[in-house]
């Protein structure tokens, strides 16, 4: 009896534990996905605020739409679609960040190019001044020798 009780008790306990584990696992998965969506939301807001020149407007619109879809898919447990949507949002955020980074780099390059061009212009003028002064100096020196 003691043994049978122990077996039943043990089996029931195991089942309960299994059920608890499964339930906890599902809840854990949902929590993680929501956190991901939240993180995406933060990323997208960050991109939007830093995009002063509005170069990612189209991509942002699509990503926001996908965020809405993901939230709905999460609520409705449409896991397969949710996985695809999350993947697209992640790829979109990476792309927008790359686009913004490129913009920053291009701006820096433009500024550096302009700075270099200005310096080249100033150098050209200074060389012209030097040439002109050398010529005048030669003329004045000749006069002084006379």
């Amino acid at each position, binding site marked *: 009896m003691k043994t049978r009780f122990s077996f039943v008790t043990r089996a029931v306990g195991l089942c309960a534990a299994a059920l608890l584990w499964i339930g906890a696992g599902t809840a854990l998965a949902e929590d993680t996905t929501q956190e991901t969506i939240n993180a995406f939301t933060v990323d997208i807001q960050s991109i939007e605020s830093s995009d002063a020149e509005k170069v990612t407007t189209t991509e942002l619109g699509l990503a926001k739409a996908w965020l809405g879809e993901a939230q709905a898919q999460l609520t409705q447990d449409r896991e397969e679609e949710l996985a*695809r949507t999350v*993947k*697209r949002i992640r*790829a*979109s955020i*990476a*792309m927008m960040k*790359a*686009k913004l*980074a*490129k913009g*920053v*780099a*291009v701006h*820096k*390059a433009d*500024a*550096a*190019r302009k*700075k*270099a061009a200005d*310096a*080249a212009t*100033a*150098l050209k003028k*200074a*060389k012209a*001044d*030097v040439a002109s*002064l*050398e010529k*005048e*100096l030669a003329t*004045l*020196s000749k*006069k*002084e020798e006379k």
Partner: protein
Amino acid sequence: MRSAGISLVVLCVAMGCGGPPPHTAEMVTFEDSRNGNYAYAVAARSPQLAKDADAEYEKSVKAHEDGDADLALHHARLANMFWMTAVYQSQATDAENDANNSAKSYADSSKQLEAANAQRDMLTTSVTRLRRIAELEGKVAATESQAGAKAKLDAALVAIKEAEGLDAERHAPDALNRAKKALADANAAFAAKDFSGAGRFADLATEGAAQAKATAAPLHAADEAKRVSRDEDDAIFAEARKISVGSVSVTPRGITLVLPDMFEKRETKPTVQAQAEITQVAAIAKKFPKRSLIIEAHTDSTGGKSANLSLSQARADAVLTALTENQIPPSRLTAIGKGQSEPIADNRTKAGRAQNRRVTVIFSRVTE
């Protein structure tokens, strides 16, 4: 015709000659970009993203061929996003390289600019110094030029005054007017600070004045001699009139003094009174040493002509001797006996004969 066309389409569909469906816009976008000129560099720089994009594209094609449009769109979008991420990263790398090159170029230019500016500063200092020297030299030259022009103007003015002093207005009016015009031009140029021009005009004025002087000088000298002679005539005339006896007149030959009754009848020795008159004449002759004296003795008609001529010559010689004794050099004296040939009154009367017996002393003009 229309039914024939529809039949051809139906036949093609029945025979399966339609092939795979055309790729979607997303797929074509990916294909164009993936096969573009820039793709090689992108794939080389971001191989993993390129690989992921290619994989997604393959899945998209497969889903498309399987007729799953949603899945095909999903993978095509992922393919495009992976690929564009790689493209943007590559472009950013290009921009960074560009910026680095520009920065290097800027650094090079700045370094050269620093050197060029230093050289320019140094040259500017030298040129400024030499400019200042040239400016000062110019001022000195201008001052010298001004002083030179002023000196020439003064010289021209003096020359013109000298010419005017020689009565050039009368003797050389053309040359003098030319000189005056040149002087006026010189003054105008000087006022306009054209010292070189002023100098040139002043030289012309001096030259004109010199010509005027050259022409006027001898004429003026002749005028002066005449004037002096006239003055002397006046003075001699005045002195001669002081002699109590005789008459004085101005004749073309000079100042003529007529002295009557200087000798006793048939005598060749002057009377005492006559001696005094000769002394007075000698005094005048001493005052005007350039004048020659012509002594002419005359007789009345009493006696023979020949005898009277000899007598008059003797009397003229006597007067000459008396003047010589009064320190008048013989070289200035000429004695001429005129006899009875030049009477001035009637010899038939006593008074007329007395007048005819006379000695004439002529103070002759040197320049005439």
